[in-house]
């Protein structure tokens, strides 16, 4: 099974952290995006198996990017990964097609578990 992941987060720190976790757990990094706009573009270009999507980002937020990607690729597997774990936000993301929601700060195990689960469906 292919495990190519697109990491979307405006923070270098989080992208490095996620990359580290993913590589240690036999995932492949398809690419990295630093805002919602880049996420939408790179999704079309790279067709990753899964996306980890931050919410608070410049240019375009992760929620907007999620909606745009789902509109053109309804089967996209997107996991939100944000400190904005408000119930209303989580609900909006899930309703808009996100497969899971990881609240920062995250534990590596929680990330790996969520990705494995979504990829296996």
């Amino acid at each position, binding site marked *: 099974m292919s495990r190519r992941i697109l990491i979307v987060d405006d923070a270098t*720190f989080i992208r490095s952290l996620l990359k580290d976790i993913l590589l240690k757990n036999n995932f492949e990094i398809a690419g990295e995006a630093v805002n919602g706009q880049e996420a939408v573009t790179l999704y079309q270009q790279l067709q990753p198996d899964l996306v980890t999507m931050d919410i*608070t980002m410049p240019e375009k937020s992760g929620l907007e990017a999620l909606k745009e990607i789902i509109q053109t690729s309804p089967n996209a597997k997107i996991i939100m990964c944000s400190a*904005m*774990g*408000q119930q209303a936000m989580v609900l909006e993301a899930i309703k808009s097609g996100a497969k899971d929601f990881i609240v*920062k*700060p995250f534990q590596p195990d929680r990330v790996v578990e969520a990705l494995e689960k979504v990829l296996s469906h």
Partner: protein
Amino acid sequence: MNYNTLEIDAFKEIGNIGSGNAATSLSTLLDTMVDLEITEINVVSIQDCQSMVTTEGQGFSVIHELHGDLNGIFWFVMREEDKQFLAECIAGDLNIATELVLEEVTNILGGNYLKALCDMLSLKIDLNPPILSEITSYLGSYENRINQEQILYIKNKLTINQQSVYCCINLILEPDSFQFTLQKLGVSH
């Protein structure tokens, strides 16, 4: 406008719950104890607020504006000489610039602070991306933009692992927002 004890207590509770959750998130990031001092509440003009933050305002600050059910500013400030220590504790051997780490730390602290408020009061708030700026001058431009007599300034100090390293997390709410919060808490007169 004057506020009674009940209302001031309600404001304090916002600070307590928000900062409590923020402190927990910082503790998770650092894998160490984070202590929280009691919440300071001030209903002041932005000018007075500026003079209140001056000491720490000269430190390193990261600012997020918030919009939605509540409008205002969330910011993090710490002494210049401590910032590298904190960033290294969090980023470990990932080689990332101190400022970039602290931007995300503030995002996480702010996100968790607001999550607590939102879940308690059934609100939805968006956080803008971080801005690296000195807080007093930022407040100057903010004052011109919002043009309000008074704001609610909530301040909390977090001390890391009983050491001399600390940071302050601060929330400013605009008048409509703190009135709305009182309503939601059921204590508005």
